[in-house]
C-alpha cells in the first residue's frame, strides 16, 4: 500500500478474439471508476495479442490503442515479469541503467474477455500467487466459459435448459454422420456455437438441414468443442448481472431488444451499437446494444427468472461478478438457463446503474468481494504433516 492507498493491477487485452472489447472494459468501466474512488492506485497491465505482458501508466490512455501507437510502444517498452513472493509483484527493467522496477500488488482486477483470461487460465496464475483477485475463481471461470460444462453443471443442479448436444471439433470429419444424426434430433431452428467463445463470435442460427454443415464447420473453426442448441419458441431472451460471494445480489433483469428470428452477432453487439433490433421506447443502450431494463415481463415470470439466475450463479460456483443469460418461452412461461458470462462486457455497469449501483460503487464492492474471498481462503489448511518423505 502507498500512503494508505491499495495498489490494484488491472489486467486486460490478451490472446482472445475479444481483445479489443477487453481494452474498453478495462479503461472505461474499471480503471476510471477505480481511480475516482481515490482509494486505489491503479497499475494497468496490457497483454498483447501475442501474449506479451506490459505494465506502464501510459497503457491507461485509450488513444494509444485507437491511434495504433501501441505497436510502437510495444517495440520499445520492456515486458513485465511476475514475481510470486507471498503475493504478486510486478517486475520490469527500467530504461535507465538496467535497474529493475518493482511493484507489489494488493489486488488484481482481471478485465479479460474470452480465451486465456476469462476462462480460468489467468485465475490459475493468480491463485498460485495467492493474491486477491476480482471475479469468479479458476473452476467457476473454466466451467462458465465452457458452454458444454456449464450446461452439464446446471443440469445436474436441476436447472432447466433447452434441448442440446455437443461434440469435439476434431470429431466432425471422423464422426460426421453420427454427429449429424444426433444434431437432427433437435427441432429447427437450432443454434450452433463454439463452446468457449463469447461476444456471439462463430454463432449461426440454422433454419434447415442444408445450412447445418456449414454452421458446424464455422463453429469448429473457432473452437475445439461445438455446442448445438434447440431454439425456443415464443422466445423472450433475458440476462441478469449478479455480484457477490455467498449471498449473490442481482441487478435488474434485462431484455435485449431483438426479434425472435434475430440474434446479435459480434458486429451488431459491439460495432453498430447494437442497433439491429432498433431503438424502442424505454430502451437503454448498454454493452449489448439496446435493451429494456427492467425486462418487460409479468412479475411472477420476472421473479422466476431472477431465481433461476441466482441458482445458476451458485451452481457454477461463481463469486465476485457474472452475468446469467436465460431463455423464456413466452407461452409456456418456462425459464431456461442459456449460458453464463464470468466477466460481463463493461461489467454491465449500465444495468447496475439502473439498479442503483454507481460505477464507482460497483468497482469498490467488487474489490471488497475479492478481498473477502481471499481472506476466507486463507483459513483453509494447505499443510498436512506426514512422515511420507521419511519413509521414502
Amino acid at each position, binding site marked *: 500500500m502507498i500512503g494508505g492507498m491499495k495498489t490494484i493491477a488491472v489486467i486486460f487485452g490478451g490472446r482472445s478474439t475479444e481483445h479489443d472489447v477487453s481494452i474498453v472494459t478495462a479503461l472505461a468501466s474499471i480503471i*476510471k*471508476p477505480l481511480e*475516482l474512488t481515490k482509494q486505489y492506485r491503479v497499475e494497468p497491465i496490457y497483454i498483447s495479442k501475442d501474449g506479451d505482458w506490459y505494465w506502464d501508466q501510459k497503457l491507461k490512455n485509450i488513444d494509444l490503442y485507437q491511434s495504433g501507437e501501441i505497436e510502437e510502444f510495444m517495440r520499445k517498452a520492456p515486458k513485465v515479469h511476475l514475481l510470486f513472493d507471498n503475493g504478486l509483484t510486478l517486475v520490469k527493467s527500467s530504461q535507465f541503467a538496467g535497474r529493475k522496477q518493482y511493484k507489489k500488488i494488493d489486488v488484481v482486477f482481471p478485465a479479460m474477455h474470452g480465451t486465456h483470461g476469462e476462462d480460468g487460465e489467468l485465475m490459475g496464475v493468480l491463485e498460485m500467487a495467492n493474491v486477491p483477485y476480482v471475479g469468479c475463481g479458476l473452476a467457476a471461470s473454466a466451467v462458465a466459459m465452457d458452454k458444454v460444462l456449464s450446461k452439464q453443471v446446471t443440469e445436474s443442479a436441476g436447472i432447466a435448459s433447452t434441448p442440446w448436444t455437443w461434440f469435439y471439433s476434431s470429431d466432425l470429419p471422423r464422426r460426421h454422420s453420427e454427429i449429424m444424426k444426433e444434431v437432427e434430433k433437435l427441432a429447427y431452428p437450432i443454434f450452433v456455437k463454439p463452446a468457449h467463445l463469447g461476444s456471439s463470435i462463430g454463432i449461426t442460427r440454422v433454419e434447415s438441414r442444408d445450412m447445418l454443415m456449414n454452421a458446424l464447420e464455422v463453429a469448429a473453426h473457432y473452437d475445439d468443442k461445438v455446442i448445438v442448441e434447440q431454439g425456443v419458441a415464443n422466445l423472450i431472451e433475458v440476462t441478469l448481472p449478479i455480484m457477490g460471494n455467498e449471498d449473490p445480489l442481482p441487478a435488474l433483469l434485462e431484455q435485449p431488444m431483438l426479434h425472435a428470428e434475430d440474434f446479435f452477432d459480434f458486429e451488431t453487439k459491439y460495432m453498430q451499437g447494437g442497433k439491429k433490433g432498433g431503438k424502442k421506447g424505454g430502451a437503454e443502450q448498454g454493452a449489448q446494444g439496446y435493451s429494456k431494463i427492467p425486462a418487460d415481463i409479468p412479475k411472477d415470470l420476472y421473479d422466476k427468472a431472477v431465481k433461476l439466475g441466482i441458482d445458476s450463479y451458485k451452481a457454477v460456483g461463481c463469486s465476485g461478478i457474472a452475468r446469467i443469460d436465460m431463455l423464456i418461452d413466452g407461452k409456456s412461461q418456462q425459464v431456461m438457463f442459456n449460458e453464463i458470462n464470468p466477466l460481463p462486457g463493461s461489467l454491465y455497469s*449500465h444495468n*447496475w*446503474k*439502473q*439498479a*442503483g*449501483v*454507481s*460505477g*464507482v*460503487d460497483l468497482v469498490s464492492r467488487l474489490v471488497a468481494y475479492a478481498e473477502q474471498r481471499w481472506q476466507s481462503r486463507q483459513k483453509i489448511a494447505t499443510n498436512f504433516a506426514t512422515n511420507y518423505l521419511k519413509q521414502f
Partner: protein
Amino acid sequence: MRKLVSMYTPRYVVAIVYMLQSTEYEVRPYLAWLRRVQDFTKVMYRRELHKTRPAMLLLVGLSLGMSLQVVLGVALIWVGYDSDRVVLTVIGTLAVATYPFVWAYGVVILLVIGRALVINPKQKRRIARSGRIFADHKGRKIAVAGSYGKTSMKELLVTVLSEGKHVAATPANKNVALSHAQFAEKLTGDEDIVILEYGEGRPGDVGHFAEVTKPNEAIITGIAPAHLDHYPSLEAAATDIFSVSTYVGDEHTYVNANSEGVASFLKSGMHAYSEKGALGWNVSAVEISIHGTSFRMHKGSQELVIESHLLGRHHVGPLAFVAAYANKQGLTKEQIEAGTKKTKPFEHRMEARNLHGAWLLDDTYNGNIDGMKAGLALLEELPAKRKIYVTPGLVDQGIETARVHSELGQAIARTKPDLVVLMDNSATTQIQQGLEHAGYEGKVQIEDRPLEFYNNLEHFVAAGDVIMLQNDWTDNYN
C-alpha cells in the same frame, strides 16, 4: 519554489494574459490572483485563453518586452564580463532574473494608463448618449436589481409579458452601464416595455444606472452576500440596491419578501411579493416535482392556474409576481397562463437532467447563500434513494466569508444529504465546520480536482439518486 520555477516556463506569458482576461482586466483581482498562484503552469485549468484582439496585443507586447529584457540582460552580462565591469554583470543578471516579475506587475501600469486615457472617456461618451435614448423612450422601463435572481426575474418577465406586449430586455447577464448603453443603441423606440438588469458592482452603481436609464418601476429580487469584495458590508450593498426606489418611488417598487435580507429595507409603501402571493393575488395548491412547479392564484373571483418548468418553491414568489404584474398590465388569463407555461430553467440554474436514471440538478450559476438554501430546500423536498450535494462554496463574500460558509454548512446538514462533496479550496474548512456544528452524520468527500469530478459524474451516480450541484468556481477563484 514551484511558483518561482513556473515563472520561467514558456507558458508563463500566456498564463499572465489569461489571468488578465479572466479578471476582465481589473487590476485588484488580477494582483490578488497573482499573489495567490502556486504554480503558473496550472493556472489555465478550466479553459484556454480566448484569442481576442486585446488579449493577442497583450500577448505579443508582453512576449516582446520579456524577450527584450532578457536579451538586454544577456548583453550587459557579456559586456560586463568582457570589460571586467562587475556592475554591468550584476545589472544584467538582475535583468534576466527579474523579467517575469517586472512584466507581470508592469503590465498593471499599462492597464491603468490605458483605462484612464482611452477606455474610460470613450465609455463615458457612450453612456451619456444612452441616457438621452432612455429619456426619450416612451415605453415603460422596469429596473431589476438585487443580489441574486435578477436574470431569472428578467427572463420571466420577458417570457410572460411577451404574450401580449412588445418587450425588450438587456441580454443575458449584461447588467452594467456599458451594456445598458449598447442595449439602448439597439432599441427601436416602439417597445411597450423595456427591462433593464442592474448588476451592482461597487457602491453607487445602482443609483448611477437609475440616473442614466430612468426607470418607471423597480423590482428588487433579494438581498444576500454577493460582490462583497467591493462593498464594505452587506448593508452597504443593500443600501445601494434599494437606492433605485428613491428614483422610482416606493409605490413603484416591488420587493421579494421571501429574501431575509430585505426585511430592514422594506417600507410600507413598497409592494412585497412572496410565495403567499403578489399584488393582491393569493397563492394556493403549490406542487413541486423534478419536472416543475405548479400552483393556483386567486384575487376576488379571478383565478390563474400557473404551471412552470422552473424547479423549486423559491420560484413561486417570482412566478406569482410576474403573473400578477402581467394581469396589471392588461394581459388576459389565457396569455398569462400560456406565458408562465413557457417558463423553464435557464442554463445552469436549477436545470434538471437525467443521467442513467439519476437526476442531476445543475445549479452551478448559483452564487449566493439565499439561492443555495433554496436549492437545498428543493433537494430536501424531492424523493430520492440517495441524495448527493456538491459545492465548492461561494465567492465574493468579503468579510462575510466565514459566516456565510458556516451557515451554508449548517443548511446542508439540516437537509441531510447522504453524501456531501466539497471542492478543496479556501471555503472547505468553513463549510465542514458548519456541517459539524449542525451534527451532520453523512459522508463528506473532498475533491481536489473539481473539473475531473464534474466530467466523471456518470461514474458516481446511479438510478434513484438526486444530485444537486451548486455553484462552480472559475480559475481565478482557486
